[in-house]
């Protein structure tokens, strides 16, 4: 139920006579198109002939299809903490956790689905992840024949990691924001040095 006080009635703005014709706007828009058309005839064009020619991938900050990272032993790095699912504004991550079969880990995901069609590629999951298990890759050419096919499960997301790990290696895995608590090599020494200083 929506409260009456939350309802705001907004009047549609009245169009002027020239706006109601729509012609000036159409000519304005066509002008831009034609300007770029002639510009690309004389200078370097803005577009490329895809897929023969492809732009260089922006590895640093492009937010494309997700991947699930593997740890040093090849296991899924995710600890099923649901932070990504909590941070996700599009509600496209579905996780089921269980007790992990490994002695050094507490919890792991038995199911990890991302609905790539629902995702808005904002990268909040990547930011929220405490172990840097979920990352966005430069992959942008994402196709599928059905909606179901576009829901990527754990195996598919791990496969994307295997494909992209060479061009974009996994970031430093840290457990928390505290220095010295991660399993990075040398993390403990760093902390000790800091205190000696």
């Amino acid at each position: 139920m929506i409260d009456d006080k939350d309802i705001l009635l907004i009047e549609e703005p009245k169009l002027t006579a020239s706006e109601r014709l729509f012609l000036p706007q159409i000519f304005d828009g066509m002008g831009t198109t034609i300007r770029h058309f002639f510009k690309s005839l004389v200078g370097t064009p803005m577009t490329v002939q895809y897929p023969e020619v492809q732009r260089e991938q922006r590895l640093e900050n492009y937010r494309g299809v997700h991947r699930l990272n593997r740890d040093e032993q090849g296991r899924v790095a995710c600890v099923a903490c649901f932070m990504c699912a909590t941070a996700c504004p599009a509600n496209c991550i579905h996780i089921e956790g269980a007790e992990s079969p490994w002695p050094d880990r507490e919890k792991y995901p038995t199911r990890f689905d991302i609905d790539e069609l629902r995702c808005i590629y904002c990268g909040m999951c990547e930011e929220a992840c405490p172990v840097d298990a979920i990352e966005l890759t430069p992959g942008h050419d994402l196709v599928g024949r059905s909606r179901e096919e576009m829901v990527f499960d754990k195996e598919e997301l791990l496969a994307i990691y295997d494909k992209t790990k060479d061009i974009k290696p996994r970031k430093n895995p840290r457990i928390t924001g505290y220095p010295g608590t991660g399993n990075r090599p040398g993390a403990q020494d760093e902390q000790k040095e800091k205190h000696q200083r």
Partner: protein
Amino acid sequence: MAKITIDNKEVECRDGITVLQAALEAGWDIPHYCYHPGLSIVASCRLCLMEMQMPHPKTGEMDWAPKLLPSCQTPVKDGMVVRFNSETVKKNQRDCMEFFLLNHPLDCPVCDQAGECYLQDYSYRFGRAESRMVDQKTVNPKKDIGPRPLLYSDRCVICSRCVRFTREISGTFELHVTQRGSRSEIDVFPGRPLDNPVQGNVVDICPVGALLDKDFLFKKRAWEFRPANSICPGCARGCSIRIDQDEDVVYRLKPRYNPKVNDWWICDEGRFGYKYIHDESRVKGPILRRGQSVTRLLWEEIPDILRFRFQEHVEKHGGDKVAAVLSPFMACEEAWLLGRFIREMAPQAALAMGPVPLEDEDQRFPVGAKGEAVKFEISKEKCPNRRGVEAILEQAGGTVLAFEDFIEKAGADAFSAAWIVGGYPKPWLEKAVAKKLSGKSELLVVQDIFPNDLMAEATFVLPACSWAEREGCFMNIDGLIQPFDWAIHPPDGVKRDGQYLFEIAGYTGLYSGKRVRELMAATMPAFAEVLAAPQLAAHAH
């Protein structure tokens, strides 16, 4: 009433309580781990320390005492002056939090307590941002201490709430603290696991993630729930509970503080007894049977069809041939609506109440306690609303039968139209009884949550809902009427009992417990104002 001054503000408080309790009740958020209002006071966590004014030994003037005092252990006295907002108190809180977190693994991402953890909350509000610990952390192993809870001793803050619970509330003495100092650990005695009928409570009172529920382990994160306040239907005590659900799946039940019934506790039978509501074998959708043919009915047409069939039957065979069996699992409102419908169709109709599932005797805790010493009770009556339905039958007047008499009479062909309500979580209709009742009724309405033996010949089969899907009120064994809310939607094709009984009884619109209670109040004033137990502030536990 004592008047004390906390942080320069005058507070009136009850006599005989402690400063911490007075401050919590007046709205102060004082950090505390070992203090629990339902347990004895040990003042071991040192988080709630305060400054207090005392007469100076030399001058005799009132001055702040040089040492901090535990507010949880200091009883209030008229004219007392204390403060929590001084730098000394805050420094103590900060330092205590640092000590608590020294050996803490900081594994919040995989800890089930995250989101409702006092270690998280307090370190955020009263702690410091960074740990100065350089040495290796002590790692205590994960311990299996019993069938229900799991102990992660590395997360434990040794508040000893669980130990005191087993000593003071359950009276079973399973838990204890072994070792001393920084090596302290909670443990069980060899060969004596934590196994008592109220053990689930140690998970609730644990302020951190040290004691976790195996049943709920890794299932869900605490912040994902959309909870509803409810009443446990497990026995006639009617403990106040909270149903934690997400997307119409119930994940756990938690107790709600109710000083009149259950205080802070619930039993394991109630806590884990909800699983049947997600059973696949539940009755789905209403059915009409004509001879051999079975038709799925639409909910919209049911009130008219039922009214017509009952009217026709009464005209043909007379009103005294009609009977209804109400279930002690029905809410008061539902029982009243059904009783009203039956009596409207046939004023001479007989009403009865279904069997009350009984166990040998009540269970009282601490084990072996009697009278005043009893802290928690589990009733032997394993249904929530026997008294409520009895009260409604009594008010309805006319022919009211005991269930045994009903069976006897039905067996002797006394009734040709019957409405039988089940709703029991376990099979309730014994084979012999079903056999006696079978083939006697021309018009038989069976309303149940699980298929029973009578359904094969019922003219109408109406699906019933579990209590988590319904709304209404239960009257507990002491006659206390308590409302409960619905937490989840019924399965596909099933409508809430209250809603369809509301429509069948001739009302239109949306059913709500409050609306029906207003109608009931005309003849039963006890239902005029049914209030839920007042909710405690989150920090006051």
